[in-house]
């Protein structure tokens, strides 16, 4: 396995109960610095795939190799690996009983044993970059959706992750707030962060990603650069899907 592969899945399968086969033998390699966008119709398994990467929703069988370690193995302490994979959710999932600053510092302080000052300096720096340093003392309920999602992104960044996973980060936002979140993500991509992004934002996919995975019925049907996928899709279902969304 080449050195710059950060995540690799081998024959990843996921069943919900007996009948629903949400992932069918998914084999993917994601390299360091790649920005991979996952697209596909509703129910095709995009979230399941993404959530299997940090085992928030563990796959039923197969391997997830993260930085050379099969994290599906029972011997592995998954929590240590999750520290290195940030995740951003559709519904933000900020902790409502903590201030923005506390949301961002609690994990570095408790898990990375950073001092309060150290964690807060880093958090404030990140907040400044997303233009929210003046809201550090606010509670999540006092922020708009777009602001919450920007906080959720920098909260994950406080752990210095190697990879960032995004599950439809803009789907719950009012249209006028989508842009501010996408621009933070774009900035992150430009800085070289490895990103896996499930999104319906085709503009973001075209402009920012280096690679697109098209999923349907639990399988990756097409895997290629944005130019390939958008201009010259091979699979009938990809064509069909793109016709509907573009």
């Amino acid at each position, binding site marked *: 396995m080449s050195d710059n592969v950060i995540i690799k899945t081998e024959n990843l399968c996921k069943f919900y109960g007996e009948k629903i086969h949400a992932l069918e033998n998914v084999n993917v390699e994601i390299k360091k610095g790649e920005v991979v966008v996952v697209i596909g119709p509703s129910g095709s398994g995009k979230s399941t795939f993404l959530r299997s990467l*940090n085992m*928030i929703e*563990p796959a039923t069988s197969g391997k997830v190799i993260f930085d050379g370690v099969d994290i599906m193995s*029972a011997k592995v302490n998954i*929590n*240590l690996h*999750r*520290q290195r*994979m*940030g*995740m951003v*959710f559709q*519904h933000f*999932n*900020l*902790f*409502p*009983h903590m201030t923005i600053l506390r949301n961002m510092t*609690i*994990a570095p302080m*408790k*898990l990375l044993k950073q001092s309060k000052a150290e964690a807060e300096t880093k958090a404030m720096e990140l907040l400044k970059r997303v233009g929210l340093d003046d809201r550090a003392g606010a509670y999540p*309920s*006092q922020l708009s959706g777009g602001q919450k999602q920007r906080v*959720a992104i920098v*909260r*994950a960044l406080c*752990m210095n992750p190697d990879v960032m996973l995004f599950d439809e980060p803009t789907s719950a936002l009012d249209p006028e707030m989508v842009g501010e979140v996408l621009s933070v993500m774009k900035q992150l991509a430009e800085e070289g962060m490895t990103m896996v992004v499930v999104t319906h934002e085709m503009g973001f996919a075209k402009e920012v990603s280096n690679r697109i995975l098209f999923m349907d019925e639990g399988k990756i049907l097409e895997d290629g650069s944005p130019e390939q996928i958008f201009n010259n899709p091979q699979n009938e279902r990809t064509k069909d899907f793109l016709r509907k969304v573009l």
Partner: protein
Amino acid sequence: MSLKEQFILNFVEDDRWKYLTNGLLNTLTITVFALLLGVVIGIVVAMIRTTYDKTKDSLKKRNKIGYSFFFIVNSICKIYLTVIRGTPVVVQLLIAYFIIFAFSNDGIMVASIAFGINSGAYVAEILRGGIMSIDVGQFEASNSLGFNYVQTMIYVIIPQVIKTVLPTLLNEMIALIKETSIAGYVGIVDLTKGGDIIRGRTFSAFMPLLAVAAIYLVIVSFLTFVLGRVERRLRKSER
């Protein structure tokens, strides 16, 4: 007999008021110890039940022995909840006093334990409801940062649960104070029994029983007032 004469007869003569004050003291003692025990039992049972529900699937795959052990402990908790919530508290008190703790004649202690075990079942279900009411996204976000189950509980879930269940817990405490009025069944002179003893001595029911009712009412009103304040503060901090 004038009201004044009644008052003197029921409360002043032979220091009969002491039945009420000593009774009240016993009522409060039983309530406080039962509440402490109930909260401890409630937390333990709620943690076992919710941890089991949330981790059984992954545990089944990873650790068969741990899973079997956990399954048994969880089943015991379920039986406890079913039995306690399915039988009258008076019956539980009688069983505790005359069967389980038949060797002991410390009624107050037995009653504290019996009411504590009873209240533990209700507290457990209140807490479990509170934990289940927290959005799964909170667990997921916490896990995605690298927190394990226990850390997630301590830093993320429990502080939110406390906020949501505090009013219900205070209500449980109010109910408990009134419930202890059956302690007389096992020979404890609590507030209710104290008033009843006075009635038996003086052959006048009016004053002692109304006094008992008034004392309960004052305590419950005070707690209800506190409850109202707590609820208002919690609502404020939501915003």
